């Protein structure tokens, strides 16, 4: 390979890195100040592109000048910045006090709503924007032609980095951002300024995302799938760089840009895995990313986000639980075939969500990649049935074993981290597992997956299989619930509440967390196996990010402080989806809106709402 080619390839990498950095810098700033993991950042990027393909051609009608092109880009970014302000004022401001995971869920609701809003406003056809006047041509570099616009992009990244540096070091606003990023407690001391600071930061963050999107229009067309395709990559950049570190994001973007530019030469087929492998390696070696700093220990002890006091069931709850079990068992008797199907599915998801709740609510281990264990359980069973002709019964037993085995393997690295980095490492492992299932076509069938994963002859009927699922799911949930009350469950809560204290009374925190992770992985694997046989097929969407997000949504809707919340949440989430999907093409909008409404109305989830109603009822006679 000649030097000219290598140089141009590396320039291509730098151009991609610049774009990636501009977007990621906004995400990392918003996280630094508000501590919100903003899923909607990708939506801002998409809106920036859509604004630009609307505004820029209109400006270029007036005069085809490069200046007007960039004016259009800046206008688009500013409009998106204002949308960021709107999101802060209307939504985020109301939920700074609710648990972090709820904030994340709310931003995911925004993602769903924006997706459908974009379809409604701009239509489903991709829109190709104009190229930048004066930068349409290619430039000869050592005998290779390279787009002039990308040379411009290569300069844009460092220019934004420089501008941000000036902002952070030369303005009061910037000093406040840095202070807030370094020490969360500081923010509280700011008083009135805090509201301004947060609004301003959201403007800046959304502006940068919008700028990134608008600058892309000469390269890619605006399409409704842009948001989710960028957001994972941007997460990777911010995490590798260290959450909150702008310079770190720059380094990480350059690293990833080069990795991709040269990765396609060496491994043209596994580019999906490469970035996540990089993230996993960086996090294992540097638990806070390249330039990130450990979260300073809070000066004041705060209540953990999760199950607080696992009480036993009182009479009303016992009745409710009995009713729920009876209903689950009675569906095949009274319901039609579809009701049975839905009930089966709800039971499967209840088990999967409960296993995640066991981790998140009871153990304080936030997993963004729980679908991995669900999916790997499904694949283990499915592959045995399809490839080796093993019957359902033994294959189903292997599902939890596989889920647990992979949870143990990944968990070994995961429990070494904490907070957002831990969550991101679970995401990275899930994406690696996803990419392997997706791209190892010979074994897994690739994205088509494998079909023919049906139950044994005696269990083929929907009704019989429903009872199998009911038995598995209820047994799994009851067993995990029991563990929550057992010394092991209490130990996980202890480690969550205070790792130093747990350590000081002789608890090996990591080992217990690893065992908890494994247990949850096993239960999720069982759920995955049960799911595979109910659908008859396996495919990579079972371990993709949306599935993980669904599980999170279920436990949060159900209430993270209530032991049985996850089960309620699984039912509620499924019901919402089932009601809206047949109703309209814009069901994602309604789903997103309901998620946001639930977060605003029941910040402790449905289970939490139930608990407070119960507490009020219990207090009534005392007052009388």
């Amino acid at each position, binding site marked *: 390979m000649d030097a000219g*080619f290598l140089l141009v*390839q590396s320039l*291509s*990498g730098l*151009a*991609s890195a610049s774009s990636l950095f501009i977007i990621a810098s906004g995400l990392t700033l918003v996280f630094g100040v508000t501590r919100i993991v903003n899923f909607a950042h990708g939506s801002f990027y998409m809106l920036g592109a859509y604004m630009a393909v609307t505004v820029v051609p209109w400006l270029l009608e007036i005069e085809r000048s490069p200046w007007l092109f960039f004016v259009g880009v800046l206008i688009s970014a500013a409009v998106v910045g204002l949308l960021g302000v709107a999101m802060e004022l209307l939504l985020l401001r109301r939920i700074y006090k609710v648990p972090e995971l709820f904030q994340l869920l709310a931003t995911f609701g925004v993602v769903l709503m924006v997706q*459908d809003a974009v*379809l409604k406003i701009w239509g*489903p*056809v*991709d*829109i*190709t924007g104009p*190229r930048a006047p004066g930068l*349409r*041509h*290619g430039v000869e570099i050592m005998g*290779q*032609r390279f*787009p002039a*616009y*990308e040379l411009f992009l290569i300069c844009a990244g460092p220019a934004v980095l420089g501008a941000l540096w000036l902002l952070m070091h030369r303005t009061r606003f910037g000093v406040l951002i840095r202070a807030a990023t370094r020490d969360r407690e500081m923010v509280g001391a700011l008083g009135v300024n805090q509201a301004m600071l947060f609004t301003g930061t959201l403007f800046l963050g959304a502006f940068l995302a919008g700028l990134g999107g608008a600058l892309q229009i000469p*390269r*890619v*067309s605006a*399409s409704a*799938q842009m948001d989710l*395709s*960028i957001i994972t*990559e941007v997460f990777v950049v911010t995490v590798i760089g260290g959450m909150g570190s702008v310079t770190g994001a720059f380094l990480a973007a350059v690293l990833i840009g080069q990795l*991709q*530019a040269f990765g*396609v*030469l060496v491994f*043209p*087929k596994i*580019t999906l895995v490469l970035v996540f492998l990089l993230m996993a390696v960086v996090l294992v070696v540097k638990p806070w990313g390249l330039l990130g700093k450990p979260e300073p220990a809070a000066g004041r002890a705060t209540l953990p986000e999760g199950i607080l006091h696992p009480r036993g069931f009182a009479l009303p709850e016992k009745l409710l639980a009995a009713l729920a079990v009876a209903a689950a068992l009675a569906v095949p008797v009274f319901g039609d075939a*579809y009701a049975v*199907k839905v009930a089966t*599915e709800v039971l499967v998801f209840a088990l999967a969500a409960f296993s995640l709740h066991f981790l998140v609510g009871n153990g304080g281990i936030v997993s963004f990649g729980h679908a991995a264990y669900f999916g790997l359980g499904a694949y283990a069973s499915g592959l045995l049935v399809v490839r080796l002709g093993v019957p359902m019964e033994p294959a189903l037993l292997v599902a939890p074993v596989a889920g647990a085995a992979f949870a143990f393997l990944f968990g070994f690295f995961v429990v070494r981290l904490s907070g957002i980095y831990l969550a991101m490492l679970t995401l990275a492992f899930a994406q690696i597992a996803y990419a392997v299932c*997706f*791209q190892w*076509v010979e074994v897994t069938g*690739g*994205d*088509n*997956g494998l*079909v023919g994963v049906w139950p044994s002859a005696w269990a083929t009927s929907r009704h019989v299989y429903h009872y199998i699922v009911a038995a598995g799911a209820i047994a799994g949930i009851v067993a995990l619930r029991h563990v929550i009350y057992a010394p092991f469950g209490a130990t996980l809560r202890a480690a969550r509440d205070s790792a130093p204290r747990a350590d000081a009374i002789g608890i090996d925190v990591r080992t217990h967390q690893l065992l908890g992770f494994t247990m949850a992985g096993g239960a999720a694997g069982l759920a995955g196996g049960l*799911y595979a046989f109910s*659908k*008859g*097929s396996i*495919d*990579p*969407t*079972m371990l993709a990010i*949306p599935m993980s997000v669904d599980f999170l949504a279920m436990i949060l809707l159900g209430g993270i402080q209530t032991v049985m919340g996850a089960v309620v949440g699984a039912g509620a989430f499924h019901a919402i989806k089932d009601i809206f*999907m*047949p109703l309209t*093409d814009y069901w994602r909008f309604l789903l997103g809106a309901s998620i946001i409404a639930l977060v605003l109305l029941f910040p402790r989830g449905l289970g939490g709402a139930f608990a407070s109603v119960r507490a009020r009822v219990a207090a009534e006679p005392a007052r009388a």
Partner: protein
Amino acid sequence: MGVVTISRRAALTASGGLAAAALVGLRAPRAQGAPVRIGELNSYSRMAAFSVPYRNAMQLAADAINRAGGVMGGRPLEFVFRDDGATPGDAVRVAEDLLTRENCAFIAGTFLSNVGLAVADLANQRRRLFFATEPLSDALTMAQGNRYTWRLRPNTYMQTRMLTEAARGRTARRWGIVAPNYEYGQSAAANFKRLITASIPNAEIVVEQYPALGRVDAGATVGALNQARPDAIFNVLFGPDLTAFVREGNTRGLFERRLVLSLLTGEPEYMIPLGDECPEGWIVTGYPWEQVEWPRHRAYVEAYRARFNDTPRKGSLLGYVTVEVLAALLNKANSLDNEALIDALRDLRTETVTGPVTMRGIDQQGTMGTWVGETVLRGRTGTMRNARYVDGAEVMFPEAEVRAARRSA
């Protein structure tokens, strides 16, 4: 132009209404009796650019059939449209809903291959007909084919073969392949590798690029292709990936003096977003609807444009033909018993707006064809020139191959 369209549309609606009224009064009575319900699931939310025109055309065709007296001796045809959520898990649940609660006679539709395959397997399990329309995966009718699953649209193999046969007589020896990294892209690339030597015996593959679907790093990909200095390129990218790839390739001179074969690029779904970036002289499969002169097709285009005030897409054609074939099927079987329907489908021949279509019995694949031609930029949008309709019957999988694949399944 706008004024003309509106007035013409209004006139058409009015006259159409009159004509329909006259028909009702004088000749075949409007369809009566219990409607025949068919469940149609597709990615209406995720793949709206394709599926909405598709649904529109189905509605158009169904209305026309119902006005003319319906099916099975006077029963109206009714489609129950549902979003399949674009994931197999959701799709299987929705399919069950359509079959049980919605009382549909059978199901049709789906877009993504993995969704299509999962629904096909469900159909096999439940012994109900699944009439797959859009999924392209060869597996659907080959290795994973089953008695209950039939597909209308030309599959990946057929479309790839149309292109390689169009390259017959060319001298390009060194080939580069660029395809999205998922089943459709991989299987198109695999088909290409084994079919190209039939047209160009000394062809060799010198570079292959498989960017992730929806996130092509166009600069790096174009650089890698350029570096290998191929004589020709086989492209499978589509949608936003295609736009990014074409722009980057145009600026970097990747397509200069190179033959390019490209799947699906000539379809309006992908031509419209490309706009004036449309490359010149690529050999593509597509749908130059404005150049098709068959009277039956022209009538459908007129009706479509009048009703929806939009130009037809490939999805529209597919939706329209689907309904035509299904109506013929119901009339022939005259029963909703799924086993009878499947027997009737075997080698069923239907006259459609795209010519005769036969549902070949051996692999349960329709002979619907598509157009092959060269891309050309006219004004600010691309279209095709020298386009000719290739009947699917000419490029079907050889029967021996079908037998081998379906036996091993």
